[in-house]
């Protein structure tokens, strides 16, 4: 098994030495952050298994798919309509970009004052340490931030990259532009896979991905219970894994987990005491294995009950409207994706409303605005988030950080002080 993996990584032109270091570093971190938790749902076993062989079993599936002539399409962002890829018989995988490990590699090329997410993703390619990148036939980028936009130009020197243009406003002309982008993407995927996208296969793909969204919505809603039946860390991991796992299996596993949580709730069982402060996190995405903020919070007596982010509600809260004809399906897809309340839009008032609504629905005691350092859109939007929270009397703490560990002491101080502040 292990030698099989090594053989596969060699075939994928992985740089084995740093790759070994990466995997060896992940084990103890996972032990500390995840496996040391008590009262975990049994349903997390599947996700532990997936992370335990993070560069093995799933990559093997992608390789098998490729050997049979299938294509693998890698993405970084929730704006890329994965339904198109599934419809054409391809497999989309959301790439991770959540570790400090690949940042120094990227800094050999990219400016240091670039956000950790961009540096981490670029470093994975530059250092040849991510088998998912290596196994993909096409990387699809988008224009949700200027840093990424320029990084994709450089990434294109190493591997085929296609960039979708996400508009910055929500006007009629912006929507028209985005619809054209979705149509163009369809053509790109058809050309890559050699398969036609039809009303039949697209309708099926829309249904498949909607089912996964429903399962993730259900999981999310279960976190409204008090005591909360699952830790924020575990829920975050489920979302992170669903970015690259098989869509059917993932739906099944999340649903099984939810069945278990239903029973827990009925028994009044939880992972944290009823009085533990309930926290909503909003802001920049947390790509796997970025569990830093959740871990600090949940080892300081709080529990995270919701994430308003691209690794949270923005990923699954909206469904695609089912339609019969291909044209109507493409329009429905475009509309659904335009409805993601990303800080790349101006104005983006809907996000402020979302935060207030989620804070109320999930009965949170406080909101933490999480900002990756040098992520200018979220950092500047945080000003308006802060004002809105003040107006609605919801306590807010703003955190700006990256993937490094050196500020954990300072973050702990701020978080402890915030929790003291919101405790009744």
């Amino acid at each position: 098994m292990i030698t099989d993996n090594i053989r596969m990584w060699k075939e994928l032109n992985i740089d084995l030495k740093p790759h070994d270091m990466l995997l060896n570093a992940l084990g103890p971190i996972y032990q500390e952050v995840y496996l040391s938790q008590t009262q975990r749902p049994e349903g997390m076993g599947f996700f532990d298994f997936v992370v335990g062989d993070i560069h093995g079993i799933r990559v093997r599936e992608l390789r098998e798919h490729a050997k049979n002539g299938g294509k693998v399409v890698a993405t970084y962002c929730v704006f890329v309509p994965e339904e198109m890829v599934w419809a054409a018989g391809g497999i989309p995988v959301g790439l991770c970009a959540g570790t400090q490990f690949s940042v120094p590699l990227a800094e050999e090329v990219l400016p240091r004052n670039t956000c950790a997410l961009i540096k981490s993703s670029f470093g994975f390619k530059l250092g040849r340490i991510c088998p998912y990148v290596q196994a993909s036939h096409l990387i699809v980028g988008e224009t949700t931030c200027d840093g990424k936009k320029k990084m994709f130009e450089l990434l294109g020197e190493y591997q085929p990259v296609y960039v979708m243009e996400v508009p910055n406003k929500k006007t009629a002309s912006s929507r028209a532009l985005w619809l054209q982008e979705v149509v163009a993407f369809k053509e790109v995927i058809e050309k890559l896979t050699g398969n036609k996208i039809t009303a039949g296969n697209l309708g099926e793909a829309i249904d498949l991905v909607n089912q996964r969204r429903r399962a993730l919505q259900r999981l999310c809603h279960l976190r409204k219970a008090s005591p909360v039946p699952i830790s924020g860390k575990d829920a975050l991991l489920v979302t992170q894994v669903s970015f690259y796992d098989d869509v059917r299996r993932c739906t099944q596993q999340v649903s099984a987990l939810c069945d278990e949580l239903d029973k827990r709730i009925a028994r009044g069982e939880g992972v944290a005491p009823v009085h533990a402060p309930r926290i909503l996190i909003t802001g920049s995405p947390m790509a796997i294995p970025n569990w830093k903020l959740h871990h600090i919070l949940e080892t300081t007596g709080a529990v995270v009950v919701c994430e308003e982010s691209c690794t949270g509600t923005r990923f699954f809260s909206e469904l695609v409207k089912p339609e019969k004809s291909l044209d109507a399906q493409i329009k429905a897809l475009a509309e659904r994706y335009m409805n993601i309340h990303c800080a790349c839009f101006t104005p983006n008032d809907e996000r402020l409303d979302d935060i207030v609504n989620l804070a109320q629905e999930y009965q949170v005691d406080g909101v933490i605005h999480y900002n990756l350092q040098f992520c200018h859109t979220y950092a500047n939007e945080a000003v308006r988030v802060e004002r809105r929270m003040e107006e609605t009397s919801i306590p807010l703490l703003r955190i700006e950080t990256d993937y490094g560990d050196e500020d954990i002491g300072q973050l702990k101080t701020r978080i402890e002080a915030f929790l003291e502040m919101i405790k009744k």
Partner: protein
Amino acid sequence: MIYAGLDVGSRTIKLVIFDTVVKESLITETGANPLRRCREILAGRKLRRLVVTGYGRHLVASTQGGKVVSEIRAFAVGARYLLPDCQGVIDIGGQDCKVVRLSMEGDVLKFEMNDRCAAGTGKFLEVMAHTLEADIGAIGDLALTASRKITINSLCTVFAESEVVSLIGRGEETAAIALALHEAIATRVATMARRVGIKGKAVFAGGASLNRCLVRLLGEKLGIELTVPDSPQLVGALGAALLAKHEDGQ
């Protein structure tokens, strides 16, 4: 009943012993082994309760059996004891800087701390004093003798030091450079204080509040009444000791 508050800071450890008034206090260097230092200063004391705050709070509390409280809360409680109607605290310590806004009742409403760099902290002044061959205890007074005003743009300790070196190389007056450095810190802290929305009376605590130039500049920039208590370095430890007493239902 004897209560103790311990503030394990990055540069110094502060201890306050309290029953109905402050009975005793001490300040010692943190050094490389804060746990041993704390054991030494607590040795032989019969304490009813201990509360620990500061950077090393978890390390010390886990072995010395005390409760832990964040610096924000400790400074808020200490400041209100010293100035019961204050609605703000500014603390500039060795490694960080914090601003806290309090309600009329003394609850923490909002706070901010400096990010992961030394800009706007005691460390910044310490490094610059060294570059200027001035004593850290005297650099504030030196700055107040400046005959002209210059500006230092960088707030990064490393870049500001290069800027200072080039000013020295240009033959600039030492006092003027010192003043510019104080301006830089005061501007930074004042910006933070305005963001937090400090109004009314505020306590200025921490080692840097012993610096007369900084007190004056910060007061001017904020346009509010800043009170520097006696022993401003002890405010956190005092707050911790008061919380120890409160914990005991006293």
